[in-house]
């Protein structure tokens, strides 16, 4: 298992739903679970990843950067348990978790 942390500058969109958290996906083979929580990060966005597939740090960083550009979130913590999902599935779950929280 590999554990990774990333922090990015966020965009203008803080979570507005009032929900304390949202979850997208499940920890099944080729899938992942994304837990999204509003958190005062001074405008930043944090990603904490546990993954069964090591040595893909740059791939994760790229997927997260794309997501930030797409949805422009701020003050959110994304916690992830990954079981070898491919990048399009990661993007989908991020979008789903964010949509439910936003």
């Amino acid at each position, binding site marked *: *298992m590999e554990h990774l942390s990333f922090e990015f500058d966020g965009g203008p969109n803080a979570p507005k739903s009032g929900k*304390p*958290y949202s*979850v997208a996906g*499940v*920890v*099944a083979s080729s*899938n992942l*679970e994304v*837990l999204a*929580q509003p958190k005062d990060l001074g405008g930043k966005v944090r990603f904490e990843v*546990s*993954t*069964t597939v090591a040595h893909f740090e740059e791939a994760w960083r790229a997927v997260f950067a794309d997501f930030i550009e797409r949805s422009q979130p701020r003050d959110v913590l994304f*916690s992830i*348990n*990954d*079981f070898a999902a491919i990048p399009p599935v990661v993007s989908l779950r991020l979008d789903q978790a964010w949509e439910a929280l936003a």
Partner: protein
Amino acid sequence: MKLTPRISFYEASARQRVAGLLDADSFREILPPTEQRISPHLGMFDAPVAFDDGVVVGEGTLEGKEVYIFAQEGKFRGGSLGEVHAAKITGLLRRAAIRKPAAVLGLFDSGGVRLEEANAGEIGSTEIMRAILEAQRAGVPVIGLLGGSCGCFGGSGITSSCCDALIASEEARLSVSGPEVIETVMGVEAFDSRDRALVWRTTGGKNRFLFGKVATLVDDHIPAFRMAAVALIKPSEPLSVESLRAERTRLARRIEDYGSCTDARQVWARMGLDADRVPDMTAAELTAVKPA
């Protein structure tokens, strides 16, 4: 009658099932994934964890009545029971015995105990069973909903059978030993676990419904499960020597009547059904022809 598109219970995640069953926005999760109470043991096996250890537990309402609910996530390690997973369910049932909601709904979707945590899962299963029996003793009915991809095997097969009533779709499977286990231990002649039709007619929702173990057979449609659950909510019947003798008599009679059967088709024929048609019948059709 307005037709709604099928909302599959089978395909849905545990969280989606909970959201679809309960009154909108009524669900309050207990020990949510933000608490990250993960398995303390899976790390030893370098296996991934889930923030909720594969089971969602909490409170909500069903047609305005307070209910507690637990839902196993079959896609996480086969819905298997680990130390934390089992403890969440036990805690919820003990909470119910104290606070007495109208019912506890149990969405079982589990292949049994998690082998990496075998002893914890086994002991935990029996803590759940004790807690079901205590909740029932307090008058709280525990209603099981079966219809997920893992079926209900091993410890979960026994646990779910302790419920006051079961609701199942055709997709549900319920047994103590899973077919693969029987095949591995006793040989393929004993049970060919790759014969899907055999697996379903032996352990599936329809067979269990025809034997009376499943109270309500429903289509694989979350609103159908919801309706069936609403209809089954009533206080748990106290145990008595009379009620258990009657149950024992019924079960002994089943052995007399069907004990020589080696296949479900023989059972159904003896029940007076057209065994060829049973696999194709809808829940409504089978309900109409089920022997009393």
